[in-house]
C-alpha cells in the first residue's frame, strides 16, 4: 500500500539539506573527542596524586567517556530538530500531504533518525574511546579487548542512539524545541545527577532514562545500583518505546 521506502528517501533528503542538523552531528563528534582528550591529559597527571581509594575506584573507561555526556546533547538536539523543524516552519503540512498515513510518515522519520544516530554514535564512541585511552597513557588506561570494555563501547553506542530517539519521541509530543530541550538538558545534567547522589531517592532515580542507560558506560559495575548494564539499557529502551508510542498517538489524533 503505502510506500515506506519513498518516505524514508524523503526524510533522508530533508535531513541532509538543512545545515543546522548537520552541524549538530559534527559538533557531537568534536565536543566528545575534545573533552576526552582534556580529561585524559588531566588524569594522566593526576593519577599519581590520587589516594589509594581513588586509584582503586579509577575506571579509565568511565572517565574517558565523560565527554560523551556533553556530545550526546548535540545528538539529542539533532533528534529534537528533525521533528520540531517541521512544526516550527510549517513544512509538517507539506510533508503530511506527501505522506498522509501518519504511521508511515512517522516510521520513516524514526527509522531515518535512528540509522543516522547509530552511525554517528558508532564513530563518536570509538573516536572518544581511543582518544581518551591514548591521552591517559599506557600505564593506567584500558584496552578495547579488556574484560568489560567491549560491553561498555557497544553499550555507549546504543545509549546515545536510544537517547536521541527518545528525544525525537518527546519532541513530537511537545512540538517545541525550547520546551523539549528545557526538560531534557536539565534532566541529563542536573536532576539525574543530584537525585543519584541522594541515598534515599537513588534507587528510584536510576530508572530515569539517561541514568538507566548510562550505567553501561564503564568497565567495572558500580556497587550501589540495582540495575545492571543491560537491565538499565532495557529500561531506557522501554522509555524510548513509550515516547514513540505517545508520539504516534499524538500525530494520529491532533491536526498538524
Amino acid at each position: 500500500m503505502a510506500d515506506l521506502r519513498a518516505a524514508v528517501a524523503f526524510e533522508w533528503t530533508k535531513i541532509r539539506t538543512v545545515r543546522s542538523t548537520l552541524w549538530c552531528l559534527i559538533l557531537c563528534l568534536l565536543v566528545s573527542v575534545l573533552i576526552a582528550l582534556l580529561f585524559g591529559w588531566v588524569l594522566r597527571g593526576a593519577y599519581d596524586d590520587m589516594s589509594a581509594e581513588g586509584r582503586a575506584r579509577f575506571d579509565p573507561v568511565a572517565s574517558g567517556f565523560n565527554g560523551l555526556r556533553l556530545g550526546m546533547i548535540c545528538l539529542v538536539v539533532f533528534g529534537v530538530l528533525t521533528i520540531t523543524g517541521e512544526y516550527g516552519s510549517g513544512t509538517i503540512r507539506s510533508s503530511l500531504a506527501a505522506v498522509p498515513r501518519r504511521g508511515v510518515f512517522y516510521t520513516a522519520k524514526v527509522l531515518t533518525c535512528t540509522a543516522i544516530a547509530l552511525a554517528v554514535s558508532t564513530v563518536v564512541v570509538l573516536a572518544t574511546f581511543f582518544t581518551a585511552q591514548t591521552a591517559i597513557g599506557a600505564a593506567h588506561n584500558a584496552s578495547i579487548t579488556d574484560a568489560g570494555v567491549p560491553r561498555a563501547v557497544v553499550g555507549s553506542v546504543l545509549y546515545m542512539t536510544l537517547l536521541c530517539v527518545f528525544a525525537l519521541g518527546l519532541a513530537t509530543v511537545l512540538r517545541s524545541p525550547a520546551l523539549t530541550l528545557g526538560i531534557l538538558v536539565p534532566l541529563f545534567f542536573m536532576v539525574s545527577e543530584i537525585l543519584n547522589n541522594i541515598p534515599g531517592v537513588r534507587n528510584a532515580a536510576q530508572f530515569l532514562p539517561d541514568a538507566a542507560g548510562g550505567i553501561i558506560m564503564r568497565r567495572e559495575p558500580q556497587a550501589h545500583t540495582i540495575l545492571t548494564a543491560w537491565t538499565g539499557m532495557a529500561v531506557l529502551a522501554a522509555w524510548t518505546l513509550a515516547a514513540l508510542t505517545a508520539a504516534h498517538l499524538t500525530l494520529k489524533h491532533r491536526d498538524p
Partner: protein
Amino acid sequence: MIEIDRLTKRHRTRTAVDDLSFTVEPGRVTGFLGPNGAGKSTTMRAVIGLERPTSGRALVHGLPYAELRHPLRQVGALLDARALHGGRTARAHLLGLARGNRIPDRRVDEVLDTVGLTGAADRRAKGFSLGMAQRLGLATALLGDPSVLLLDEPLNGLDPEGIRWIRGLMRGLAAEGRTVLVSSHLMDEMALTADHLVVIGRGRLLADTPAERFVARTGSLEEAFLRLTADASDHRAGKEAR
C-alpha cells in the same frame, strides 16, 4: 473530482465548517468564495487530510486522501506558501517531496522553470519574498503533474505578470480536463477565471452555480457576492470605515 460530503469541523467553541456538501467537477475552474473566516481554507485542508473532520468526509476520485499511494501525483495543493524551512533551498524542498512520491528528479527543474524560479533555485527560503514563496508553493502543487488542484488564494503577493500567468495556467489546466478548485477574494480575477462558483458563509453552502448565472443577477460578481453574503459574514468593517 472532489466530493465534500456533509463535512463538519468544530473547534472547541467555533464551527468552522457546518454540514457542507458540494462536488468539484473536472474540466472547469471552480471558484471557491466566502467572507473571511467562512471556512474555505478549513475545507481545503480537510480534502488533503490536514484536518480531521468532526463528521462527514472529503473524497478525491472517490477515495479518502490517505488511501492514495502517491498523493502528490494526483492532488496538488497550495495552501500556505509561507510554510517553508528557512534553511532549505527551493530545489531541496521540491526534491524531498519528489523523492517521497517517486516523482522523477527532473520534474523539480521543470516546475522551477514553469514558475520562474530557476534563478532562485539554490537560494535558502528564508530570503524569499511573499511572491517568491507563492511561486514555490505553485511549483509544489504542480510537481506531481496532478489531475486535481487545490489553490488557496494563489494570487497573494504575485506581481501583475504573475497574476496574468496564473489566470492562463488555471484555464489551461481545466481545459486539459483537470479539476481546479481555487479560493480568492479578488472578484475581478474570479470573474475572469472561474467557470463555476461555490460560495460559503459561516461554514455553510450559500451558492453552487455556474459563474455566468451568478453574475447575471446583478451584472457584477462583486455586487452579487456582497448581497449573497451580507448576512453570513462575521467580520464586516465598522460603518465609519465603510
